[in-house]
């Protein structure tokens, strides 16, 4: 790129990498479904493989995050606040970290999920992943937002997505409460340490939805300021 061309003016767009990062995060979370299927089927070899996939995707997301941070020098003139973008990417990254933690913890202890609430647990997990999927969808609207100058219809559309995210998160809370009750009913027959772990895994899976909602509210802040 010769400096005598005006095209040096155009800095690398932060928006596309941000979307790529979120897609990567979402892909990482999606692998939790087959992972838990393997866990429920007691197939620890497959679970181990899937955990490696999840961990690999989390690493990729990390390097994307780092790249975004490095390509956002302070001398940029952007339509949105620089700090908002950095906070957004941080929030996105926390989802992948959580997914990796869940997989690692379950595999490490070879944690058995009681068959009694296996189906319910799958539904709960799927709902939490709905939240991350929707967060990814909302982030994917960023380039359209740029086209409309962060105004008008496109903003309304994204705001609708964000409120839908809130609803999903609320759903997952309800599901979590029900699962805890079921666990409470059977916990006497289980290994106490496993029970403690089960409780915390329930909480962590719920965190996926919480953090997806966090991405939504970061996006909301970004829009509110522009």
């Amino acid at each position, binding site marked *: 790129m010769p400096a*005598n*061309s005006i095209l040096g003016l155009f800095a690398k767009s932060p928006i596309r990498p941000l979307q790529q990062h979120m897609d990567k995060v979402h892909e990482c979370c999606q692998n939790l479904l087959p992972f838990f299927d393997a866990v429920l089927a007691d197939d620890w070899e497959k679970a181990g493989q899937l955990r490696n996939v999840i961990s690999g995707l989390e690493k990729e997301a990390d390097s994307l995050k780092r790249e975004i941070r490095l390509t956002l020098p302070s001398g940029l003139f952007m339509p949105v606040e620089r700090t908002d973008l950095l906070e957004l990417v941080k929030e996105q990254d926390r989802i992948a970290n959580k997914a990796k933690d869940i997989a690692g913890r379950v595999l490490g202890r070879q944690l058995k999920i009681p068959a009694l609430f296996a189906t319910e647990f799958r539904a709960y997990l799927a709902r939490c992943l709905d939240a991350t999927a929707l967060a990814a969808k909302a982030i994917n609207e960023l380039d*359209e937002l740029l086209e409309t100058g962060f105004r008008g219809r496109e903003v309304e559309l994204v705001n609708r997505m964000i409120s839908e995210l809130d609803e999903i998160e609320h759903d997952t809370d309800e599901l979590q409460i029900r699962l805890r009750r079921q666990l409470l009913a059977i916990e006497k027959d289980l290994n106490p340490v496993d029970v403690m772990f089960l409780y915390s895994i329930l909480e962590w899976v719920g965190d996926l939805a919480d953090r997806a909602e966090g991405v939504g509210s970061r996006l909301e802040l970004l829009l509110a300021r522009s």
Partner: protein
Amino acid sequence: MDIITHYGTALVLLAGLVGFFMAWGIGANDVANAMGTSVGTRSLTIKQAVLIAMVFEFAGSYLAGGEVTSTIRTGIIDANAFVGHADLLVIGMIASLLAAGIWLIVASHYGWPVSTTHSIVGAIIGFAMVALGNDAVQWNKTLGIVGSWIVTPAISGLIAYFIFLSVQRLIFDTEDPLKNAKRFVPFYMFLTAFVISLVTLKKGLSHVGLQLSNMEDWGYSTLASLVVMVAGYIYIGRKQYNPSDDKDMHFSNVEKVFAVLMVLTACAMAFAHGSNDVANAIGPLSAVVSVVEAGGAVAAKSSIAWWILPLGGFGIVLGLAVMGKKVMETVGTGITHLTPSRGFAAQFATASTVVLASGTGLPISTTQTLVGAVMGVGLARGIAALNMGVIRNIVVSWVITLPAGAFLSILIFWILEALVL
């Protein structure tokens, strides 16, 4: 004085040569700025861009390039001061051309974003100060030129801002963006064509021997623009659109419509650039020619010899053809996330500002105007990220170019003076 009468033809040939050299430098240096955005948005291939640049730079320089020439020639320096010193004027103008040309080549080599306009203005001021002292320079005129460096980016920024805002309101922020794009883009085409054709008729065609009244100017421009608009409308209607492209980006097809417009504004940019920047090369050249033809008399106003404009235009085109491809390749590969709709707004604003300013006879910098326009689109929140560091570099190089051009031209002037006089 004998030198003019004795060596007149040789001097004219020399001036023609360095003028051609300077024009070549302009073509080589500015092609990226004039055409880069179109290549960057993939609206044009490199080959097409160079071809369009060649055709329209030449057309612009030939049809609308006469106006700025007189400012470069006599606006910066006081023609009366050179009465009786015609030899100094001739040598100085040759020195200025050579200095500016060398400076452009040096700057291109190091990749500094310099303005061709500034280098020649600096060079002329430099030699005039050495040749005849401060009084020979029309400082108030110079102030006007310097002022235009602030005013033109501001104007083009404003135009770009509002154009882009209107694009957002009328097209992107609607229920059916594609339908509205098809509806409104031809109108933007009309605007683009209108600005260009009006300036061409008003400013340019007098030396081709066409004299039209005001009413005729407006009428013909409207007519030509309507033709462009209808052609655009038909072409856009026939283009293939693929709804599935809009899956991950709702506006892919809308941008396809804008790509057509982008091609048109690219032509306008090349035209505007040719009309304004060719004067940098041929202004001093035509000063030399008119002095020699008048046998040493220095006239403030004289018509441009018939062969000068084509010479300048041809020099620019040659510079484009030789260097253009290389420059374009670097531009095309290192490109950005510029979309046709944004590029169109920036190019339209630049082209209209440049041709309007050329109409006033001010030698303005195309690069600066484009920077202003890009900033305008950025302010309308249309560009994902602009690198402010680069803007700073560009501005610094603009400021440095003046003294650099002056210094070089003084040096060459002294050398020539020692050799010739």
